[in-house]
């Protein structure tokens, strides 16, 4: 299984821990990731607000580079990138005018985009390409006893995701259950984390963060599992502001890839667990010695 890997800006910055855990986990599962050479910012939501055409052009450059560097599906772990790249692909097909613009802009730097390369999210790949069975095989330290609120956030499943239900996604649930953890019913799993508003309109953003954390706590979750760097950042980094507003709600938020790493028994230092502001202290118990003996 080979994929062109599009990290996106966040995974090099705020979401570093996501990349740090994603890469070893994928490697461990025999999924080859080829980072797109000289990729650029996907355009993201902010740029959409400035100029849709330009945003699409930015995204298209990455799609074109990926095609140029090998006929592989693209894997975009950041929900925002995943959405923008897919949106661009849709617009490219649905609106001739947009196609012309993109062709024109790419032409200016000697690139071409066919519009065929699929853009996929790690969850999609793990469930549909790798398969839960294969993942189960790799579990060394079961996450038994860990209660998780799976938090998908918004842009991962809306509006373009085809691999899961928009209203009640379940891929991450099934995944962490395979790792041995228990999923608590969390009706906010696709609600918005406030996105960039936490920084720009704190009173609104912080409230959303609080609601998400507080509901997770009320439902007895030990942590939230997320698949988006911005979600993780908002839920983790603003605890001070949340405390100031509403009192402390210290539910840690981890990337689902970090949980996989733990379950696979990969070395902790490789999983970027140290990067969280609200530390995630829970650890799986060692596999029963009998197994070890058998293995030896």
């Amino acid at each position, binding site marked *: 299984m080979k994929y062109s890997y599009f990290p996106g800006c966040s995974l090099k910055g705020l979401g570093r821990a996501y990349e740090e855990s994603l890469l070893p986990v994928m490697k461990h599962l025999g999924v080859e990731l080829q980072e797109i050479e000289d990729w650029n910012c996907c355009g993201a939501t902010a740029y959409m607000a400035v100029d849709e055409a330009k945003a699409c052009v930015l995204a298209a450059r990455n799609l074109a580079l990926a095609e140029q560097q090998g006929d592989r599906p693209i894997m975009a772990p950041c929900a925002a990138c995943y959405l923008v790249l897919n949106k661009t692909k849709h617009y490219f097909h649905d609106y001739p005018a947009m196609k012309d613009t993109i062709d024109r802009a790419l032409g200016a730097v000697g690139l071409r985009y066919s519009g065929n390369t699929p853009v996929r999210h790690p969850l999609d790949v793990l469930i549909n390409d790798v398969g839960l069975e294969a993942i189960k095989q790799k579990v060394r330290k079961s996450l038994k006893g860990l209660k998780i609120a799976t938090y998908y956030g918004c842009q991962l499943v809306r509006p373009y995701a085809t691999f899961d*239900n928009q*209203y*009640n996604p379940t891929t991450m649930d099934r995944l962490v259950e395979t790792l041995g953890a228990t999923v608590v019913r969390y*009706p*906010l799993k696709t609600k918005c984390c406030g996105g960039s508003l936490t920084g720009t309109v704190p009173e609104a953003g912080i409230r959303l963060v609080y*609601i998400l954390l507080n*509901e997770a706590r*009320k439902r007895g979750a030990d942590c939230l599992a997320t698949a988006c760097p911005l979600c993780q950042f908002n839920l983790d980094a603003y605890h001070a502001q949340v405390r100031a507003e509403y009192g402390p709600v210290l539910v840690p938020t981890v990337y689902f890839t970090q949980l996989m790493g733990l379950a696979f028994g990969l070395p902790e230092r490789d999983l970027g667990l140290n990067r969280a502001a609200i530390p995630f202290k829970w650890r799986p118990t060692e596999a029963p010695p009998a197994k070890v003996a058998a293995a030896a």
Partner: protein
Amino acid sequence: MMKQQANGEIRIGFYICHCGHNIAAMVDCPDVAKYVEKLPGVALSRDYKYMCSDPGQELIQKDIREFKLNRVVVASCSPLLHEHTFRGATEAGGLNPFFFHMVNIREHDSWVHTDRKEATEKAKALARAAIERVAYHQALEVKRVPIHPDVLVVGGGIAGIHAAMTLANAGKKVFLVEREPSIGGHMAKFDKTFPTLDCAACILTPKMSAVGAHANITLWSYSEVTKVDGYVGNFTVTVKRKPRYVNEDLCTGCQECIANCVYKEPKFADEFNEGLGKRKPIYISFPQATPQVVLIDPEVCLNFKRGTLTDKCKKTCVEACGEKKAIDFKQMEEIKEIKVGTIIVATGFQTFDAKRIPQYGYGIYPNVYTSLEVERLVNASGPTGGEVMLRDGRHPKAIGIIHCVGSRDKKTNRWCSRVCCMYSLKLAHLLKEHTEAEIFNFYIDMRTPGKSYEEFYDKLLEEGVHFIRGRVGEVTDWAMTPEEEGKLVLRVEDTLAGFVRRIPVDMVVLATGLEPQADAQAVRRMFNMSCGSEGFFLERHPKLAPVNTFTDGIYLAGACQGPRDIPDTVAQAGAAAAEAMVLIDKGYMEQEPNTAYVLQEECSGCKSCIPLCPYTAITFDEVKEKASINEALCKGCGTCVASCPSGSIAQRLFEDDEVFSEIKGVLAYE
């Protein structure tokens, strides 16, 4: 050309209709008339405001006599609308009605084009085609098919019941086929009916028992139509009668067997009560069920589960039945074949599956109900005896009723289901009556068209029910505030107040919409009908033939044709019955003489046409070694004509000459 000469001198009268502005606005009618005037064979050419009006038709008749016309062409609306009218006029003028041909320049021209010049050119081309064609027309005789006097009514809801009763009371023999163990349909499940609030049972059950007792009605419940052959006046219908393991003629409905079933307590989900109640393996759908005959559910009856051979079950029901000997575990499925002349399809609707909108939490939160479930909940004969008790045993203090669930939504069903607003108002009233709870109605638009419906809305407003104009975003159980704890919370914009609200309630009622039955497509095929884009059966004309289908002798009644309430359904059922009676009392049906015939001298006897005919109208004459067509059986599709390698089959009204000249005509115009 031969035939045309054979027809002698051709004198065509051409008439183009303005249809007020409908045609004249986009087509230059006088100009078309002028163009046609010069065409060969045209004796006179006129434009006129309304050809279908009496003066218009008289004009045709007058001209036929004065100008010795022997062909008539009218360019106006669709032949499906007025061909009949003008054939009549032609005949009244003393000509064979089939010397007439019609040109459609309204539906196919003036209404669909925007450029007057182009539309006029098209009208000329189409007119010319008709002129070329009509010259070849032959005098034809109309075919008459006798109508079998018996009627089949499919579906025993209020529509089927009313249609059957109307016909039976008029002395017609009716077969009423119902899929469920009892007739009554959805209406039997309702508690009260809007806007008068008279109880559904009180007005329906008398009709039901009347059906059961009527000498002219053969009632087959727990049965399904599986096959329909033949054509108007002469259908052969196959009906499957499912085994109820109880002999209908012997069972008196005493229900001793139920009382004595080995299961002391009912423990199986009860379909009639939407699964809110329980029944035994041997049961009767509901107290007033018609026919009053019990049935056995082999899925759960011990006698079947443990195998009839190893007699483990005590068969207490058989003992209880005693001398009547009505219970028959060996009963088999029965196949009946009946002959009828006309068919009324009244197969009804199904309610929208609320699970398809997960945001509303049906199937996730136990206190989210569908409207049909609530109908049973407030019903005195329902599972709770009319006490509104939630699945968790509590009594609701606040209730939210969400309108338009599975209606007016492009992602589920686009159409307005027409009855939800009114039945939601009714349920609001009944729930208020039963619970004194605070009640919120969430609607997009309040639709109360109908006699004293708006007044009913006023009544509810006076009763202090809250009406919030806004489509609920979601139903959830996560609390923002203390008073929301343990409640279902509806998040909605109060669009009239202009802000978003969170409203905690104990019970949510989903006003699910009406949609076509799951098997509507199969049924449609079986009866050779069409479906509209939303899947309801298609009427022949939305205004002028609302109960007819495109297949003669098959009529529609009730919600299978589109969402409608009880008054409209009953009215339509009456109309369908009347349409059927028109044929029956007339005794025959006139049919287009568009049958195919073999040109004996040219037939090479290759037999390739014989397997093509779906009506086995073509046989092979072994003596003459030629095919021959039984025109009584021929429906006039013309498939054999097009397929005959030696071109030795022809079709009346669609002779090759006629079609070729029409082609020549549409293309000749420059």
